[in-house]
């Protein structure tokens, strides 16, 4: 259940972080006969890295062979169809191309990696597949198994399905300290939570959580990626995800359709000091535009919004999927392809924890997420044609929306070309009415993101 006050009980497992990784692990833990809780500092799930990324289900051709990144990527990619079906998450294998301006030789390293990782790729002429690709692109590596997914729904789907299978979720509950006697005592802003095991899935903050209990052993540097999101009118500009050759800082700037039919360009890559610096910058956005422009014949101008996400870049060089101390597990340094790998990481980590606790499978586990359908065909968001019924379902689902952004992420009200200009007030009214709170209590996302200051005179 979603809990506001702490339960006085000892959980078998407490998962810290309700991003895609923590949520996937929690849901996979529910397959076992274990009591599970998720502890999240934000007021909603999916408020960290999982909400702002490229949302590509990577094929797995560029991860270094033999690493956890490569393994989890390839397995995660294969699991994605089934998981998205069970959790009702929009997903499509649209295929990806890495274009080269130089020639086939420049792609040979990727071809070799693909082969080692067991990923099917071929060398093609990109112009045979995409009309609008730059005429400077000489050839491309095509990976048909690459896809696009809705990262919010994947995260929410995992978290909701975990809760539907008995997990508790504590939102708005930052973890402040960790101690262990017989069990772990997790000190939070709301008091103490007891658990036999901990899974640290705190994203860019995973090193901070680690250091609350163990001595420092790795450092996570937030690596910012900025994006430009374009109008849906451009949905047919490209059908594949178009990469350029990867560089030292990551997979480089891509241009891709999103699962909802927008066009997305980004990300940049800049290392930061602060873990909550989500500012977009003139330089970052200009870099994205200039680099993305090289991939296409003509880069369009219909930007509807820009945003930034933070990669949890670890100094370990690979994902950390481990039990560094008895009962203390962690899934850390999960940068790209973390979203793709989430199904595999969930399964892997849950298996590790269940093994440690000697847990059996729970025969009552139901992998299918409940879908709420509520009446109301009045259109609230014009740009994305979102009905009142859909918004009601977003509010009254297993982990219902409480904020404007929460509604936006769940049903897209306000994510279209007018960016909430028309519908945000109506959504606020519906939230206030359904949650039975005053209009002025509705927030954008965080507790301090006040929208209105009381009544007019």
């Amino acid at each position: 259940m979603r809990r506001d006050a702490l339960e006085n009980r000892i959980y078998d497992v407490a998962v810290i972080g309700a991003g895609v990784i923590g949520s996937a692990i929690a849901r996979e833990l529910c397959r076992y006969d274990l009591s599970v809780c998720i502890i999240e500092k934000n007021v909603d799930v999916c408020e960290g890295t999982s909400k702002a990324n490229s949302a590509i289900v990577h094929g797995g051709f560029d991860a270094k062979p033999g690493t956890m990144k490569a393994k989890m990527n390839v397995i995660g990619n294969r699991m994605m169809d089934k998981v998205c079906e069970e959790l009702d998450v929009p997903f499509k294998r649209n295929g990806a191309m890495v274009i080269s301006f130089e020639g086939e030789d420049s792609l040979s390293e990727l071809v070799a990696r693909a082969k080692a990782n067991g990923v099917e790729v071929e060398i093609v002429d990109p112009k045979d597949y995409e009309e609008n690709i730059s005429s400077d692109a000489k050839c491309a590596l095509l990976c048909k198994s690459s896809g696009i997914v809705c990262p919010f729904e994947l995260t929410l789907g995992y978290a909701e399905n975990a809760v539907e299978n008995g997990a508790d979720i504590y939102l708005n509950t930052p973890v402040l300290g960790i101690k262990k006697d017989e069990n772990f005592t997790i000190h939070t802003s709301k008091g103490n939570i007891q658990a036999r095991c901990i899974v640290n899935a705190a994203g860019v903050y995973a090193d901070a959580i680690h250091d609350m209990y163990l001595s420092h052993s790795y450092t996570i540097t937030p690596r910012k990626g900025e994006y430009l999101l374009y109008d849906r009118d451009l949905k047919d500009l490209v059908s594949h995800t178009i990469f350029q050759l990867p560089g030292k800082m990551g997979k480089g700037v891509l241009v891709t359709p999103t699962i909802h039919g927008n066009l997305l360009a980004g990300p940049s890559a800049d290392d930061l000091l602060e873990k909550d610096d989500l500012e977009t910058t003139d330089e970052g956005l200009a870099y994205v535009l200039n680099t993305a422009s090289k991939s296409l014949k003509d880069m369009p101008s219909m930007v509807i919004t820009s945003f930034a996400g933070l990669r949890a870049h670890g100094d370990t060089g690979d994902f950390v999927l481990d039990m560094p101390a008895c009962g203390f597990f962690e899934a850390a340094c999960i940068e790209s392809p973390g979203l793709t790998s989430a199904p595999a990481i969930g399964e892997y980590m849950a298996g590790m924890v269940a093994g440690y606790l000697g847990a059996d499978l729970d025969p009552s586990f139901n992998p299918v997420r409940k879908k709420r359908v509520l009446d109301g065909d009045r259109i609230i968001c014009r740009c994305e044609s979102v009905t009142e019924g859909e918004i009601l379902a977003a509010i009254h689902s297993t982990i219902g929306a409480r904020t404007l952004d929460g509604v936006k992420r769940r049903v897209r009200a306000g994510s279209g070309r007018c960016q909430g200009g028309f519908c945000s007030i109506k959504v606020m009214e519906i939230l206030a009415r359904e949650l039975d709170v005053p209009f002025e209590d509705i927030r954008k996302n965080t507790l301090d993101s006040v929208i209105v200051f009381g009544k007019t005179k």
Partner: protein
Amino acid sequence: MKKDLVVIGAGPAGLAAAISAYEEGIRDILIVERDNLLGGILNQCIHPGFGLFTFGEELTGPEYAARYIAKVKELGIEYMLDTMVMDITRDKVVTLSSGLKLEAGAIILAMGCRERPRGALNISGTRPSGIFTAGTAQRLMNIEGYMPGKEVVILGSGDIGLIMARRMTLEGAKVKMVVEIKEKSGGLARNIAQCLDDFNIPLLLNTTVTKIHGKDRVTGVTLSTGEYVSCDTILLSVGLIPENELSKKCGVRLEEGSNNIICSEDLMTDVDGVFCSGNVHHVHDLVDNVTKEAIKAGKSAAIYLRR
């Protein structure tokens, strides 16, 4: 179901066009409106300044709309509220959000316009609460009765922004400045005098906002001059775009960039029997001009239907 004339939108353009067609002898008319009341954007424009040319007196937006609403009701012209047109085809089949399909003899597009959001300007920075288009802030205050902010910077000197500078000041907010990237404001001279000058609100020309600050709520902006200005609210009044997504679906030709409809003298679009009027055609300064155009569109549609 068949309908002689379907009018999409019940703002001043749609209402006047429907009345005009009625007066030309067309009886089988339906007005479709997605909001829950007739009148469109005028409902939130509670300041005076409407109707000087049409009625020779200064009305508020709701008063101006009320005259047309009364007429529509008096003539018994049929309308649907809370109903959005989802699709129009080239052969004038209109699909409503209720699923109903109408075969229209003629269509008048009167969907109005929308405000440009922040994304269109690509201002960098954070994404906190406290950034509103001027029209959204106007609706929050005038229809819902809530204060959207206390310390305000207005970006762009469009008329709604100017009107809101005065409105927020009268409600006790501190409007620190209006910044305008161009060397001249696009707003009406009377609005600059009555909404800014009378309240000593500075208008900074050749200036824009280059960065937005604040993690939760807006805390300030950086101007193109390099100056940092603290504020908790940013209103955007940076232009209007005709709301032509539907028009595109049936193949109406638009002018690139402005999104204006390209149409003939009698307001028929490129699509046979589809007419346009008001801000969906192009953005008008004054509602009086919208009404004038709408009357013509209603007449043209009637002539088309009688042909």
